[in-house]
């Protein structure tokens, strides 16, 4: 009976205790590495922010036009703050990976390995999305101003459509980069984009035939109500 109890209860518990005792230092090491990462991340963020301000990085980017591009893209923070923040987070993230690896779990290691291989794609996808966002805002504003100056009443709608198409395109490219439903995404984009163009053609064709006729008549016969103001 004693033997049975020892094999069924005591031995597994002993084994668990031994494993825990073996694993505890790893957990402790992992937590310590992660905490060190957080501290280092915060310190580096602070130091780099001071450094960027000392070298007047914002002014440098202002001159290059990048700051203007980011502001147009809706970014409110200064570039030095954003860069310092990115450095801080990359440090913390790097230490998180180190801390997970220090656990010596084969399953975790495998996941980390595949994640690390995937990371460049995530990075490129993020860049594509960022560029798409900034470009979308820029071209949308250009379309808005040009449409207003041309006197199109639907200037706002045109600007929104331009932005939507560019965002859709960048999202498609980002998802393709991530390898998520590659064919499906491209086909879906082609259908949506084609649909939008077709709908617009129909809308302009049916709804705008009078405007088109009026426009052509004005071009051919001349506009009786034209301005003769010479601006220069």
């Amino acid at each position, binding site marked *: 009976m004693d033997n049975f109890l020892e094999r069924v209860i005591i031995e597994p518990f002993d084994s668990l205790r031994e494993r825990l005792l073996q694993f505890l230092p790893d957990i402790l090491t992992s937590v310590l590495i992660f905490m060190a990462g957080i501290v280092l991340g915060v310190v580096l963020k602070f130091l780099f922010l001071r450094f960027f301000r000392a070298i007047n990085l914002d002014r440098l980017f202002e001159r290059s036009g990048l700051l203007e591009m980011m502001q147009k893209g809706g970014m409110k923070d200064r570039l030095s703050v954003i860069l310092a923040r990115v450095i801080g987070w990359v440090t913390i993230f790097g230490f998180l990976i180190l801390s997970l690896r220090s656990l010596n779990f084969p399953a975790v290691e495998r996941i980390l390995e595949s994640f690390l291989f995937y990371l460049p794609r995530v990075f490129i996808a993020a860049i594509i999305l960022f560029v798409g966002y900034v470009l979308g805002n820029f071209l949308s504003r250009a379309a808005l101003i*040009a449409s207003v100056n041309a006197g199109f009443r639907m200037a706002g709608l045109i*600007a929104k459509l331009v932005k939507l198409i560019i965002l859709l395109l960048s999202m498609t490219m980002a998802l393709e980069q991530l390898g998520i439903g590659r064919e499906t995404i491209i086909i879906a984009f082609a259908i949506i984009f084609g649909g939008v163009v077709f709908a617009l053609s129909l809308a302009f064709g049916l709804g705008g035939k009078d405007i088109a006729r009026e426009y052509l008549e004005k071009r051919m016969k001349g506009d009786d109500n*034209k301005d003769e*103001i*010479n*601006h220069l």
Partner: protein
Amino acid sequence: MDSILLRPDIRDKLNEITEADILVGIPSYNNARTIGHVVRAVQAGMAKYFPDKKTVLVNSDGGSTDGTTDVVQATAVEDFQSILLHHRVSPVFKIATPYHGIPGKGSAFRTIFEIAGALNVKACAVVDSDLRSITPEWIELLIKPVVEGGFDYVSPLYHRHKYDGTITNSIVYPVTRALYGKRIRQPIGGDFGFSGALAKFYLTKDVWETDVARYGIDVWMTTTAVANNFRVCQAFLGAKIHDPKDPGSDLSAMLFQVVGATFDLMETYYETWKMIRESEDVPTFGFQYAVGLEPVSVNLNRMVEKFRLGIKELIDIWKVFIPGDIIAFLQKTGDSQKSEFRIPDEVWGKIVYSFAIAAHKKLLNKEHLLKSLTPLYIGRVASFVMETWESNAVEVEEKIENLCNNFEKGKKLLLDNWS
């Protein structure tokens, strides 16, 4: 960009002429219909007023396809007696050549400056190729102040229809006068006289890849002359009547180039204009008289509608750099009845200065910023048209004078917000 002087045909022509006293340049692009009259007036002016001088006429063409350069080559004054000329005159040399560089009036002028420099001329003039009111006296009035008066730059002074030259009247004249302190009434008139030395000075500037190469050339020439302390005067030329601009020409692009060049010059000459507190008259030559002008059609409804569309769609862009009280006023104006529609001088001055400050601080992409000015400018022109509907030329001039005074008073706001 290669210099025009490297072209063998131009080199041969310059070798043939060697040196000259006076050069008149005519920039052109598809002006076959009007350029013949301009060439005749220039030739007659040279023959009548400078018979003993060696003179050159340069047509700098932008690749016309309607035979403009052929018209220039074929045109000559056949009957000198009609201009009361009986004595022997030196021949007028003629050069008609396509210019190099960015398509635009500025590039055409650059070619004229280069030829003037190569021929070491004493005095130059440039006149537009679409003029219908040019007479031989224009050449005398643009050249003589340089040759005999020792001036370096002669700006034109015309009688124009009250709704002609609205960018000049509402932006360029008030701004340049307030900034540089010289009351040059037509700073972008298009027809100027200048010394050979000033032509050479223009060539030393590296601006030929900017908006100066396009519509920005006129304000650049005037401002460069004033800001660098060249001796400046005005000459009264009478009426300015010219072919209407191509209806396809884009107002916002024109505004972008002219206002963009004006704002760029503010950067270049900040040290000069920040010191100037008030404006003064410049010497004016020519016998002034009243002239009849052709009527100008104005579509007020369309202008007000464009302004309202701008208020509806672009107000968020303007909020970034236009003060809140002006934004509130613009919104109220956008909602008002057409009969109550007004953009007063003080408001317009603050708007223009806000755009200048925004361009200086690079708050927005420059092209977006300046093109977004178009609906506001159209609104201001509509307001001006309504205010001066019944006014005669003298009353209109008084209105423009008031506007200029407002710009001069408002300069402090510009200076306070510049740095």
